């Protein structure tokens, strides 16, 4: 956990509202694990006030990448940054996915909704390096929400996608794709399901996993004040030792075992 006030941006790609920034950050990169995230400063002034949390999307030598969708003022400011400029970031933060070495040779399913693909890409590379047989399911509202599809395919990942409107891939939800996939897998169910995306999607993933008795890890989101455990602003209800508590997502998460997450009926 470091502050790198001057991570130099070395690359930028964009697809509509989606952006990929890569930057040199040797110290943070050396420690980064899939599922961990960064808190990135979006302004030198106290407006917008807070850093923005973004998952670590990729690592290559000393270089890290973030992949994000413009959601408001903070991500919009970030999207204006160009190579040569620097980012001020804290990281790597949180605990990330539980990558057990004995996943080698086993099937793993990574399920990403929209910008939720961000941390799964890093995860997929690491799992592949480990020798796991990873399959990526990537869903969005429409084709424009799947900007990484071509890349994933080109890089040889086993890959399927879905869109709500059917413009590409299976028409429907990515969780329906997930059910198809498990059904098709037949005798060899995934040894682990890793998912990141909007809450309703994660809730559906958790249900399917429970139903099929699959171990699943979910990467959650929440409003973050600090990102490193100091403010207690980011809590989610998590069940531990049978007791549900408000647990800090930034410190103990953002990835939690699916069965430990207690979903509120409606988020207020």
């Amino acid at each position, binding site marked *: *956990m470091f502050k790198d006030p001057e991570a130099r941006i070395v690359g930028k790609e964009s697809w509509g509202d989606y952006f990929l920034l890569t930057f040199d950050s040797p110290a943070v990169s050396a420690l980064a694990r899939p599922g961990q995230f960064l808190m990135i400063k979006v302004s030198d002034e*106290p407006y917008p006030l*807070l850093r923005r949390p973004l998952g670590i999307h990729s690592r290559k030598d000393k270089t890290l990448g973030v992949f994000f969708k413009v959601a408001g003022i903070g991500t919009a400011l970030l999207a204006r940054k160009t190579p040569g400029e620097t980012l001020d970031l804290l990281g790597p933060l949180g605990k990330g996915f539980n990558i057990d070495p004995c996943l080698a040779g086993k099937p793993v399913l990574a399920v990403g909704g929209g910008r939720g693909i961000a941390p799964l890409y890093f995860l997929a590379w690491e799992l592949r390096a480990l020798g796991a047989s990873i399959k990526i399911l990537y869903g969005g509202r429409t084709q424009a929400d799947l900007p990484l599809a071509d890349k994933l395919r080109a890089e040889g990942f086993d890959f399927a996608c879905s869109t709500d409107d059917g413009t590409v891939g299976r028409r429907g939800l990515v969780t329906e794709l997930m059910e198809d996939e498990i059904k098709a897998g037949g005798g060899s169910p995934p040894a682990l399901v890793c998912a990141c995306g909007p809450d309703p999607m994660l809730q559906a993933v958790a249900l399917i996993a429970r139903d099929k008795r699959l171990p699943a890890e979910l990467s959650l989101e929440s409003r973050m004040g600090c990102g*490193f455990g100091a*403010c207690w602003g980011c809590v989610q209800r998590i069940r531990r030792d049978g007791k549900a508590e408000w647990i800090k997502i930034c410190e103990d998460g953002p990835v939690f075992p699916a069965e430990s997450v207690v979903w509120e009926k409606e988020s207020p």
Partner: protein
Amino acid sequence: MSDLSVDLGFLKLKNPILAASGTFGYGLEFEPFLDLNRLGGFVVKGLYYGPREGNPPPRLVETPSGLINAIGLQGIGVEAFIAKVLPKLQALDTAVIVNVCGASEEEYVRVVEALDAEEGIAACEINISCPNVNKDGACPAFSPESTRAVVREVKRASRRPVIVKLSPNVTNIVEIALAAQEAGADAIALVNTFLAMAIDVETRRPKLGNVLGGLSGPAIKPIALRMVYQVASRVKVPVIGMGGIWSGADVLEFMIAGARAVQVGTANLVDPDACLRILGEVEDFCRRKGIERLEDIIATVKT
């Protein structure tokens, strides 16, 4: 090198920069980012006697140059604090101040008494001003009577210096400060957060699980500074100023207005090393202006 130390009477600080309660965890969370021993000191997260659940999320909303929080003082309670956290803090060479909460006068007293047996605590800061606990944001710091009552009981129970932390959500801050002083406060800290609200127009729900929360950050600085100025010109005990401090210049504004020390809150969340950056800016200012003793600027505003 200018002398940056400030003397609160009951406590001499290396420098006037304290980290504010609730924005600095139990201190240890910041060790990866800065050397705690370089701070004037820090105030740990508010402690009730027992552990507390806190409020349902969302607990934070960002607003223009501000932050509304409704954490609701989730925390481990004083016993766990003494058992698990305090030993680590005792190894530090900086002023550790404990922020004391209570649902009743008795609870404040119980917390203070539990702490009294321990070493390594420079002072207690009595939080009679948290807006996130009662439904309507009310707290003892809303009236001189209830302020006096809590402070008197706590002073009676404690062997330690007592800093009383006031709420800005009042008509007459001077009156409350005078009540705290009269009841024995060794110092006055102000301000806690401003009672605030935000609504999601899409869902028509409050953006905070707790409906109301407390506003902090640069947005409130001009109001906080006014209150520190008003209080410092009327009380005899030292005033610890805070509210929206983001830079060395902000620290100097509060000190010129009359604060002997300051607390940095929300800035710590954005920059875990904010206190040291700010300290550096204060040092630079003193050097540039040839100020030998930082204490000389306290309460020098020319009105």
